[in-house]
């Protein structure tokens, strides 16, 4: 009985300490020091939230860089992957068809090596990144869809190179490029070009 009373009391004490005070305290520090991060790195455009920098979005339009395949179609409730094993025939079929789609969609040569992140679904289903190579393969198609001349195309290529993140501290993680942020830049370039043409 004495053990039970002590257990109840110390459990209550630790619940308040680690279950209430600890998260509230961390929230306080987080909101003071890194408010943008703590609230999800939301991107606001024209007073509307268009997404989070960290959460990938579905892009299948010809005028945008495509994002990775996602087992949940970029619907975050709930996040997750396909969980297909390598000997699952569905995975093999999906890779083959994604490869064909990518080649046809981007008017590529049949023998083009497609970076594998464009053929395989991510773990979270919300992966915001693709590789630089995967982005560069899409530039021709985007430039064409947006009626850009070769100068415009060069601007996009420069933009892709500029937006590529190198490994953190030069040694951690992989080269990558944030698709949502890249597409937002793309819209800016286009807006800039259009305004030029109207001025002329």
């Amino acid at each position, binding site marked *: 009985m004495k053990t039970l009373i002590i257990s109840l009391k110390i459990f209550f004490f630790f619940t308040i300490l680690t279950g209430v005070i600890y998260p509230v305290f961390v929230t306080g520090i987080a909101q003071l020091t890194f408010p943008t991060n703590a609230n999800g790195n939301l991107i606001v455009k024209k007073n509307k939230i268009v997404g989070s920098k960290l959460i990938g979005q579905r892009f299948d339009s010809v005028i945008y860089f495509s994002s*990775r395949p996602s087992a949940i179609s970029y619907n975050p409730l709930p996040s997750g992957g396909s969980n297909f094993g390598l000997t699952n*025939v569905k995975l093999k079929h999906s890779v083959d068809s994604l490869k064909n789609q990518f080649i046809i969609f981007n008017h590529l040569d049949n023998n083009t090596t497609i970076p594998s992140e464009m053929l395989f679904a991510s773990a979270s289903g919300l992966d915001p990144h693709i590789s630089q190579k995967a982005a560069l393969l899409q530039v021709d198609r985007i430039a064409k869809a947006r009626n850009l001349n070769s100068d415009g195309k060069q601007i996009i290529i420069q933009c892709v190179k500029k937006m590529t993140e190198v490994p953190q501290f030069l040694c951690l993680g992989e080269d990558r490029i944030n698709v949502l942020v890249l597409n937002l830049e793309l819209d800016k370039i286009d807006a800039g070009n259009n305004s030029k043409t109207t001025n002329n």
Partner: protein
Amino acid sequence: MTTQDFIQIILYFTLLIGLTPVLGNFMFKVFTGEKHLMLPVFGWLERLTYKFSGINPDKESNWKSYTFDLLVFNLVGFLFLFLIQLLQTYLPFNPSHRTNVSWHSAFNTSVSFMTNTNWQGYSGETTLSYFVQMVGLTVQNFVSASTGIAVLLALIKGLSRKTTDLLGNFWTDLTRSTLYILLPLSILFAVVLVGQGVVQNFKTYDTVQTLQGATQIIPQGPAASQIAIKQLGTNGGGFFNANSAHPFENPTPFSNFLEMLAILLIPAALTFTYGKMVGSAREGWTIFMAMLILLLIGLSISLYAEYASNPIFGKLALMEGKETRFGITNSVLWSTTTTAASNGSVNAMHDSLAPLTGMVAMINLMLGEIIFGGVGAGLYGMIIFVILTVFIAGLMVGRSPEYLGKKIQKFEVQMAIIAVLAPNLVILIFSAWASVSNPGLAGLNNSGPHGFSEILYAYSSAAGNNGSAFAGLNANTIFYNVTLGIGMLIGRFGIIAPVLAIAGSMAGKKITPSSSGTFHTDNFLFMGLLIAVILIVGGLTHFPALSFGPIVEHLLMNNGITF
């Protein structure tokens, strides 16, 4: 693999080895009552805990009442967590209106977090309110880890004291581990994680209009505070369904590196603490080295398997279920450490790993989570194997076995055997049952040998109190929730009880001074024997089952066969 891949791996292990004596020494001071860094900061909180709870910190108990205290405390935690899930809608901090959880899911989750398993049958972002995540889960993340450390401390006292029946005080062991080790490290780590982009707020979920005009609901919540302790306390239960693959849980390669380091940090440092507490740092380093070697063997096999080409996908990098920012090397380093350490958080989907990589993860679980293992739990599990090794070595040379100057006798060996058998029985019996029953087979996401692997992994994860999964298995059913829950209970307390019994029995023995005839347990010879015993016991028990799952799948994959 590139040079950069090797640099990351070397950096990781260098930091791990370097931090082991630093944190190990700090924990030594905390547990032996010496003056330490955190005493001026949280000393008052320790005294307040005792005063509030009516604890006499100087009163010590024998192994039976120590075990009783531990069990009652864990039962209270279980019941509380069970009830708040069933009554979620009536409780505060539920801005996204999550409904009450089903009884079997609530049972499974409560057992899971109480036993430091953190298996998740549910999806965090669509099932639980912020209240349950914080007041329920975060609390268990702390106290289940401290419970593990407490058991280890009792065992150390049993090994280092002589002719007594007292093993210390469960409440002070629990309090000191929580206040001086887990809490300060978690606060620090949580803030660093937010600096990398992990969310920490109490907002409702945000609804956004994507660039293409679709609607996306972005989940929020106090994630960083929970992730910090889930990594440090070898818990592993994610705030979101995709766990540490979710960009809000693990946004950058640096957050990934730190979260990986946090997985092994305390279990590794405890080996140093152990060495110092039993009076010889070499004893601790010998165990550390055995663990490290087993880990590196597993890592090498995993990296080889993941980078190898195969007839199905040719030379394509196997990115299914992996995130671009981490790539293959960081995903494999994580899958190996998280399964070695009974953490169970994932940054890649283990179901989609190459068959041999998945097998290494499974072997890590099946060996009983002793390759660094859970906080406290890994080391006391390893000491069970040390006792077996000493016993077997004693038989080989015909000398009565001793460890740290204490005779290993019938009772200790019996208890050690129970501790080794309990989780293995769970794995083999439940996996066999699930493989031949309809409710068991209904949950499968893959067919062929990989389907069997999903089942085998699930029960290995439960028995080893790991919590990672071949997550394609739909385990949120009555059958899986209940059987996995029972498996976790046996895997936790089926080891804790015999370990405390051994501690009690060892405490009563005399210490024989070391002589020229003593069999030493702090050298390379012993380390080799220990590794051999672990691999033989694990290998003999699980090779048949593994050969039906990942081994045959690997062979079929290399012949281009799919299911």
